[in-house]
């Protein structure tokens, strides 16, 4: 969190700077099959975030020491392209991208039926080519669409969405300015069919009531995003 700001980000009508109500999410588009050479892929724009995800596999896991006799291993990498941010991002892994790769892997391993593919590897590569705020949510959501596009069996898709707090108001799906000046951020990874969670992080400062509100916003938004994901997977592009 960028810290407590004096910047007024909610107007007298309770609307946010980009005109959204507190519970509204940004515009989302989802396309599948965008990488011809991959086994499954997804391009997702969410506000001015853009993530491209490729899935390769199941394929041979090598070196052999990474193989598991009873299941596939999931190799998940999250990365931000150098031109994805206002100030150029130096290429290569950093602590942030390593952590996000790990929690994304933990989330996806919870839904992919890995035991169907012993000794193999499934590679999921998440590239953020334009970052606004909430890239880990876009990456995880797009990754689950790409896995489905690759025909990998899963118990459910994963919808990841974050809510937070600005000017003491709980709002859903923070944009860049709200994220910079916001007071809290609660990203969750939700299984839309059961309402269960596979990913959870939080930082900032929320009262128990505010936390409950943010949680509910995420749950509601997950249903909205899930519809778009299903549409994209069933029939090409989705707006």
């Amino acid at each position, binding site marked *: 969190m960028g810290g407590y700001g004096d910047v007024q980000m909610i107007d007298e009508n309770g609307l946010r700077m980009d005109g959204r109500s507190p519970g509204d999410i940004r515009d989302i588009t989802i396309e599948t099959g*965008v*990488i*011809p*050479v*991959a086994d499954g892929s997804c391009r997702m724009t969410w506000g*001015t975030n*853009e993530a*491209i*995800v*490729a899935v*390769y596999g199941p*394929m041979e896991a090598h070196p052999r020491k990474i193989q598991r006799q009873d299941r596939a291993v999931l190799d998940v*990498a999250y*990365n931000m*392209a*150098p*031109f*994805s*941010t*206002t*100030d*150029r991002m130096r*290429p*290569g892994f950093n602590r942030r991208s390593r952590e996000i790769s790990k929690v994304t892997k933990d989330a996806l391993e919870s839904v992919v039926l890995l035991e169907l593919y012993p000794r193999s590897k499934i*590679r999921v*590569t998440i*590239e953020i*080519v*334009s*970052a*606004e705020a909430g890239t880990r949510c876009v990456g995880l959501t797009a990754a689950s669409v790409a896995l489905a596009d690759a025909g990998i069996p899963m118990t459910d898709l994963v919808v990841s969405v974050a809510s937070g707090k600005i000017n003491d108001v709980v709002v859903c799906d923070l944009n860049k300015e709200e994220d910079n000046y916001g007071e809290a951020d609660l990203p969750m990874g939700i299984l839309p069919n059961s309402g269960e969670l596979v990913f959870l992080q939080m930082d900032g400062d929320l009262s128990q009531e505010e936390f409950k509100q943010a949680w509910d916003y995420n749950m509601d938004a997950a249903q909205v995003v899930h519809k778009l994901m299903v549409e994209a997977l069933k029939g090409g592009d989705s707006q």
Partner: protein
Amino acid sequence: MTIPIVPKLLRAHLSDLAENDARIDGRSQWQGRDLEIEHSVLPRAEGSARVRMGDTIVLAGVKFQIMQPYPDRPNQGGLMCSADVRPIAGRNWEAGPPSPEAIELGRVVDRGIRESGCIDVDSLCIIPGEKAWQVILDLFAVSDDGNLFDAFALAGIAALRNATVPAERFEVGEDYPLSVSKTPIMCSYHKVGGRFVYDACAREELGGDERIHITLGDDDNVHSLQKGLKGIFSADEFSEIMSNAQERTKELRNIVDSM
């Protein structure tokens, strides 16, 4: 990059095709794949382009930084060009520091753009000896179905030609378009089945031999050459592809210049 196993059958098939003046995807010897170029596709970049050549897709993004000019060139800014092929682009590309193949890609594209003089480095100076613009061109592969070189070079020059210098954000004046006075274009040729073809796809690269990259400027001047991979070629073969490159670069330059 993992070293792929080259099937002998593929090499034999490519040779048979070449003898009948045919290619594996039905193209003729000097025919390129369907080409799409779009610019200004990345909201965070000061200039950007997406190029699609068949199933090869790349992005190019331009960012600016303020640098201190080098002591021996106090009135000049700089251009940096780097290419990265990450595992997203194909199953043989692996994570980690840039591979020799990716470094070669970035450096060959860099030389073509730099040596053409299309960017006037003197115009990038803000305060002599103190502040100058560094233009950073990042090339990013989304889908590798062969000939990333030409796709990168095209996306690179298209992104630069549509770039805006973000002077307001750095509080050194008003934003203005980056001045790019020329349009260097690269054409790449691969030896496949014993003869050179233009714009090889991944299967032709896999079952082929050496490759030659030619970057020509506006007046057909040669700005960069590179021979890659194992193979021997003759002066006659080279002059044939050079004359083809003169035609093809003109066509591509017209497309980029009209964007």
